[in-house]
């Protein structure tokens, strides 16, 4: 692998960003309602020129008010999950680590459900009510990862296998909590347990939530990026990294907190979508190598591309009905994962 230079970093990210743009345009074009490519291009240019009032109301609302926010949501959620997965894999030096496998997604889902229940009891104005759920999800994710962290410690050191097992057990425990909450306390106006355990992007997020997600993603990813070089050293092992002068506990705390924020934000708006955090980092590592200064932005862009594609499939294959996007990521992701795993082994 050639050494990473800033030029190469930007070139690669530029290519990925271009790919993301193409995928977003394709996603904007496709949907339950037919939209012509010409009309789409004309309207996008109008939006960029701040002339959105000139857009014909006919599909202005559909493309711009329904499809675009959903695609942006897929971009942020995909990027968040993917960066969270990258961080966990580096930190635990375990290729199977990902927010879904470690139970953090389930914890965030439980947090979201509890927040939803509390929210429906209190009379909060709708603009703020939407912010309760991401906060609850973050708390759920943070508490879960703290619990999994404690479970995974052995003689003061994190033991990857123990932690992973602890995560799997926690995930299954929390899934049953979700089932319990759904079948006893929650009214029928909430989404069912399948949504939280499979994931879907069909809820139209309010603008305030989209901003919160975007800012949260940038802050958390930025925080993780500051540890990129340390994560590279951590690949050699915790003790080795410590000997090389890495402040391992600090890196761990930063990455855990930031990854909890990323997972919490993503899950609160989309449920627990699996495989993105597992597969995209793998694929990016195969293409670009395991230098985290490259891997983190590449995973963010790759995760966005993957989830926008998956959600476009979920939206269109059975239109006007929809599939759960988590089902699409699993159906595409599981075989691909097995392939990657076998390729690694051989």
């Amino acid at each position, binding site marked *: 692998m050639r050494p990473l230079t*800033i030029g190469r*970093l*930007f070139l690669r*990210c530029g290519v990925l*960003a271009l790919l993301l743009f193409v995928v977003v345009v394709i996603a904007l074009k496709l*949907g*339950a*309602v037919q939209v012509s490519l010409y009309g789409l291009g004309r309207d996008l240019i109008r*939006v*960029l020129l*701040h002339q*959105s*009032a000139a*857009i014909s*109301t006919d*599909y*202005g*609302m*559909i493309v*711009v*008010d*329904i*499809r*675009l*926010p959903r695609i*942006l949501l897929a*971009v942020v959620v995909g990027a968040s999950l993917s960066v969270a997965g990258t961080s966990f894999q580096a930190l635990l030096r375990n290729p199977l680590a990902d927010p879904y496998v470690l139970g953090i997604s389930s914890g965030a889902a439980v947090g979201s459900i509890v927040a939803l229940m509390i929210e*429906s009891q209190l009379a909060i104005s*709708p603009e703020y009510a*939407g912010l309760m759920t991401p906060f609850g999800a973050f708390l759920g994710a943070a508490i879960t990862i703290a619990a999994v962290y404690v479970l995974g410690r052995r003689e003061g050191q994190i033991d990857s296998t123990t932690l992973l097992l602890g995560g799997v057990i926690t995930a299954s425990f929390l899934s049953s909590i979700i089932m319990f909450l759904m*079948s*006893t306390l929650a009214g*029928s*106006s*909430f*989404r*069912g347990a399948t949504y939280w355990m499979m994931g*879907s992007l*069909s*809820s*139209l997020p*309010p*603008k305030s939530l*989209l*901003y919160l997600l*975007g*800012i949260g993603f*940038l802050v958390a*990813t*930025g925080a993780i*990026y*500051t540890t990129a*070089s340390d994560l590279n050293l951590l690949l050699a092992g915790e003790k080795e990294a410590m000997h090389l002068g890495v402040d391992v506990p600090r890196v761990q705390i930063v990455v855990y907190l930031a990854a909890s924020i990323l997972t919490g934000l993503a899950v609160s708006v989309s449920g627990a979508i699996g495989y993105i955090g597992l597969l995209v980092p793998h694929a990016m590592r195969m293409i670009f190598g395991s230098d985290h*200064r490259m891997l983190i*932005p590449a995973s963010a862009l790759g995760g966005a591309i993957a989830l926008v594609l998956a959600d476009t499939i979920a939206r269109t294959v059975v*239109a*006007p*009905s*929809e599939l759960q996007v988590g089902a699409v990521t699993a159906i595409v992701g599981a075989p691909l994962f097995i392939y990657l795993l076998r390729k690694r082994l051989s």
Partner: protein
Amino acid sequence: MADSTHSLVKRALLVCASFCMFFFTADLAAQTSLPASPVTPAMHEVTDGYGRTVRLPVNPSRIISLAPSLTETVYALGVEDRLVGDTDYCDYPPEAQKKPKVGGVINPNLEQIAALHPDLVLMTKEGNLLETVRALETLGIPAYATDAHTVDQIISATQKLADVMNVPEQGRALTTDMEQRLGALQTKLSGIPPRRVLFIVWPEPLQSIGQNTFIADALRRAGAASIVESNQDWPQVSLEEVARLQPEELIFAPSHSGAGDDFDSIANRPGWGILDAVRNRRYAIVSEAIIRPAPRIVSVIEDLARQLHPDVFIEKPVTEKEAHPANSAAPVTSGAQQKPIAYRSIEAMPTEISCAL
């Protein structure tokens, strides 16, 4: 040193670039909220089933229904020509299937809804999701939700829907008819002990209804009492518990419960033989209207009452039969076991109440 400053620059540039990208996209999203259609028709404020105060057009002309029960109500009120879309599950009356579809009840397609330019979207608090309400709010599409947990509330919700769709007289005619028919039935059934029944929503795993559902209330009106004491709406019940309670009758709606069309597909499931009602073939099949909080609930209540309490509905045949009991034309009910009382009645009530004791 040189390398670390280099990487610092890289980081800074990257962060800047991602910020730019984000604000560009966020700006894109912020730019896009369009005002609703420029022509604003007369509006009024109504309180809906969520307790929200919603602004609705006084005379909506493009209505979308997001639940089968609402579609039925729209047709019952005779305003189906204003219905521009409904869900995949809206199958009654059959013409409703030909309306443009907007997807399912739980996951309607927002694009499809917006494409139909509705000025009123009808929802139920029970069946639709809060997030669909929020999404429609975000899009500025007027939505009105009903909320009915009893038969009386179904009647008042029907009237409110009639008001919201600006046909209050049709509403009054419809609800008066519903009330009168239920009143007549109540008079007929007064003093008759209710039959203890198990309502089967889904046989495997066995799911029944809670006491706070409109279905439980409909059963009460039909002279039946659900044996499942639960505050959940759709409790999962163990067969053991049902065996302990021993319902006198099983009730199910074939098209809805995945049980197939006949009693045997339920009765032949392992373990169900411990129920007296299964061994004695005591059951009633009702139309899927029982699970829809719509005006048709009255017909299904009447139908069920006839199936459960046939004696009450036999006026002259009773004396006729007592006149010549030995000369029974239909050689069915011999022995201790009763003949199964099961009618496949859909909309019209069964008129042939044959000699069921």
